[in-house]
């Protein structure tokens, strides 16, 4: 009878934190073209050189590729075969590089009348929720701050379903994993908020902003930076 009471300490000893293992998500195996910079602001009459890089399915850079450059609005932004962008008139245009099979993301070009009104280079993307139970709305904006380091900010209409341990990650693909950069805990599940980034983070290092529930490894929402 006395031994029956040993049940309780035995149960407590069972309550240790263990380790679970999962297979990493495979790297996204598709070819792509990366264009830098990913957004440009120029004055009328100014020229800027764009650079395109072809990356194959294995993630290797392929040299000696002939790209075709296209401007959505040649009256505002002209682009040469060598990727030299010219500001021709006030307004906005999108420019992308392509090969026979692969098209880059479009980069936004803003052309202003004079150089003093140039806007800083930015990247932005709209948040999308995981499913009906994990809503995520609003826009993520990545742009230089006052000190030159990048700042990640969310728009006034930002909203994500409340959850435990929500943190922000920057990632090269749409899932947290090796190579992701943890920014820190989410400040609020709604409304505008800003996160200063380390000075070593460059505008083109990451393509996704993820709102991730760290304790349970579930991504509530994501925004692809364009």
């Amino acid at each position, binding site marked *: 009878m006395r031994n029956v009471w040993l049940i309780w300490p035995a149960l407590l000893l069972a309550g240790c*934190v263990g380790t679970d293992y*999962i297979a990493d998500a495979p790297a996204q195996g598709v070819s792509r073209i990366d264009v830098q910079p990913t957004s440009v602001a120029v004055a009328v009459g100014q020229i800027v050189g764009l650079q395109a890089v072809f990356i194959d399915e294995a993630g290797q850079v392929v040299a000696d590729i002939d790209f075709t450059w296209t401007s959505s609005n040649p009256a505002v932004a002209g682009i040469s075969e060598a990727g030299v962008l010219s500001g021709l008139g006030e307004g906005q245009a999108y420019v992308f590089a392509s090969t026979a099979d692969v098209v880059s993301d479009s980069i936004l070009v803003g052309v202003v009348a004079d150089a003093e009104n140039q806007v800083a280079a930015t990247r932005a993307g709209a948040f999308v929720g995981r499913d009906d139970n994990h809503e995520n709305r609003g826009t993520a904006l990545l742009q230089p701050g006052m000190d030159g380091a990048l700042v990640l900010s969310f728009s006034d209409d930002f909203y994500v379903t409340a959850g435990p341990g929500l943190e922000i990650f920057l990632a090269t693909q749409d899932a947290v994993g090796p190579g992701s950069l943890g920014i820190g805990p989410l400040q609020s599940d709604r409304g505008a908020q800003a996160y200063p980034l380390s000075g070593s983070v460059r505008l083109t290092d990451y393509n996704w902003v993820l709102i991730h*529930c*760290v304790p349970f490894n579930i991504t509530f929402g994501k925004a692809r930076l364009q």
Partner: protein
Amino acid sequence: MRPLTLGLLLVLLLAAAPPATASGWTQPQGHGFYKMGAQILRGHDFHDGQGRSVQIPTLAQYTLSTYVEYGLRDNLTLITYLPVFERITLNRLEGRPSGFVYTRGEAVNGIGDGELGLRFRLWQGAATVVSAALNLGLALGNDEQASGLQTGDGEWNQRLELQLGHSLYPAPAWIGASLGYDHRLRGYADRFVYNAEIGTHMGQRWHLILHARGVRSLDEGADTVRGGAGGLAANDQRYFSFGPEVLFDVAADVTLSLGTMTGLDLRNTLSAPSLSVGLSTRR
């Protein structure tokens, strides 16, 4: 009915009463039922609000609790439930082959949410008893864990139940059922709670109870209140659980119980079998 027959029937009714009643019987004045229990819930299959399975790191909840029923009067019983120690663990999650740590792993310890209630016997026939019970949730647990590993929900809910107990004499068995409405606060949805059980005595020292328990939320919870992570103190929950409990009288006044429950129709809760063990006595 002659006094001798009535007296014999009452003795047999008491003998057929469940060792841990949840079915409407009240305790005699000045007498009580006391139970110390331990429960383990451990799993990694969370079901979201649509019932979809989501794999999470292994989540476990270990609870040590006391449960007391004490007869204030023959028809009025005081009920207390107190999880005196609760430990919640969440496993570390590591990717392979990268070694990337997706989840750091965490554990919290503390007291859990308790309950304080009264059961009032409304009517008693020869083999049947009907009672009403009012239970107040005691928000003693911690509901401020950023990780969501909450030991409580932080709200003082009130649950009103109608309870029924019925002896199957001359068979050594009984059945019980209850239906309750749980009024919850702080953004948590109200919910219906129902229980059913059938128990039998197997010889002098062994007893078996089959339990069924269900929770059905009105799904009106505030969208900003998710409750605890992994469904441990979650909002808008729904489930139906069932399982056996075996009891053994280890001494004249001490009973050892061992039970397990599993669930169906899960919403916002962890899909995991629970294992419980308890020691109880009547005084």
